[in-house]
């Protein structure tokens, strides 16, 4: 992996990094952390509401990634996507487990981020692509996805809250995700 400190990794580079993680190699863990810790921590902060909980979540995510490393397949998706999926699942599980956790605010795009390090270039590109993908949604679709993804609300909870049929909510969620997916297809692996 020498010589390409910034920008998205190639599939074989991601595979090597994950193999390093699987072996418990410190350098591999630090490289993964440098690239992906910030979006993982940020997601934890937004979903769980405190720096302490987000820090704990970040540690749990890298530990879970180590446990699942043998199952990572670069042909089925990017490393960043895989880690964010792990992070979101762990955070939502925790939200459900712990009573009294304040529901997070539903904000999709905030202010300008602080200056990233060279290792975080990939994450910046991911963010740009994500913002473009979200822009393809209507305001109603943005709110709907935010309530499920950042708010942890099920389709039934949304349907009951808004007084609309459950099937309609499910269809709208699917339509919105497909739009995001389509908008994202041009940022697939280099």
């Amino acid at each position, binding site marked *: 992996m020498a010589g390409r400190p910034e920008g998205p990794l190639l599939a074989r580079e991601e595979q090597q990094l994950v193999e390093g993680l699987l072996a418990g190699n410190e350098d591999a863990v630090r490289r993964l952390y440098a690239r992906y810790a910030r979006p993982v*921590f940020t997601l934890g*902060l937004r979903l769980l509401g405190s720096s302490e909980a987000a820090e704990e979540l970040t540690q749990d995510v890298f530990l879970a990634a180590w446990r699942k490393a043998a199952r990572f397949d670069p042909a089925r998706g990017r490393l960043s996507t895989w880690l964010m*999926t792990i992070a979101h699942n762990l955070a939502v599980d925790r939200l459900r487990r712990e009573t009294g956790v304040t529901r997070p605010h539903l904000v999709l795009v905030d202010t300008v981020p602080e200056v990233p390090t060279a290792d975080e270039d990939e994450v910046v590109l991911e963010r740009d692509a994500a913002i473009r993908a*979200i822009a393809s949604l209507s305001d109603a679709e943005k709110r709907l996805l935010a309530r*499920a993804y950042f708010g942890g*609300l099920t*389709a039934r909870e949304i349907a009951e809250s808004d007084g609309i049929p459950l099937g309609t909510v499910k269809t709208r*969620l699917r339509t919105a995700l497909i739009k995001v997916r389509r908008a994202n297809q041009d940022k697939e692996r280099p």
Partner: protein
Amino acid sequence: MTCLDVRERLPELALGVLAPEDRDEAERHLRWCAGCRKESEDLSRATATLGFVLDPAPLPHGLDDRVVERVAAAAGRGAGVRRVRTAAASIVAAMVAVSGLGWGAVMAGRADRLEDRAALAEARWHEAIEDFRRVLTEPIPVGELSRETAQIGTLHATASGRGGGAVLQLVSPTITDFTITIVKGLDPEATERLPYRIQLLNEAGDVLKAGRIDELDADGGAEVFREFRQRDLTGFTTVRVVDADQTVVLVGEIGRL
């Protein structure tokens, strides 16, 4: 759950908000249905995108060291388990190969009479066990897996079943207990009997779930690996394989090598 049922639930699964009971059932379906799995992966990729739109927060000082320490500690502890698991997988492969020969001979009709078939099957299983016994002590480091921790048993068909099987069980105070169950010769056409469930029983009649078989290969075979992180398997020596109607089709006892 049909493909239609699963696809209706995939957006919520991707968003991480599907109810646990539905999630388990959908994930079981995704293990064997390539079409639904593809759609699930597409939606999951879209969902992961959402996590990147947030304004990045500064990382706490020293978190990198804490992450490295936790992974290193876990990797150190887990190394033994991983070696055992790898070794166990190769042993199982050897067992399957040997038992496959035995069943192949049975299926080829080399022994026609019922008693001969039973005797031949028995002999082949003894060969498999001997082979297992021989290779067991080689790849697994002394101290991590001893003869006291590894147990094996054979499964025999009840009047309601056919085929047979073998179970490898590890009961250890230092590494995660696990079972590996291999079945062979069940009826691959009898899909209505799926899923088969593997159960471990102790003398008190307590039952532990040791895995589930959702599909069989063309020879009516399957392999199931199950870890027991929170349970000690000591005393759970009776093994049963039951079909979807809870009818026992295979049964056996496991004992120390």
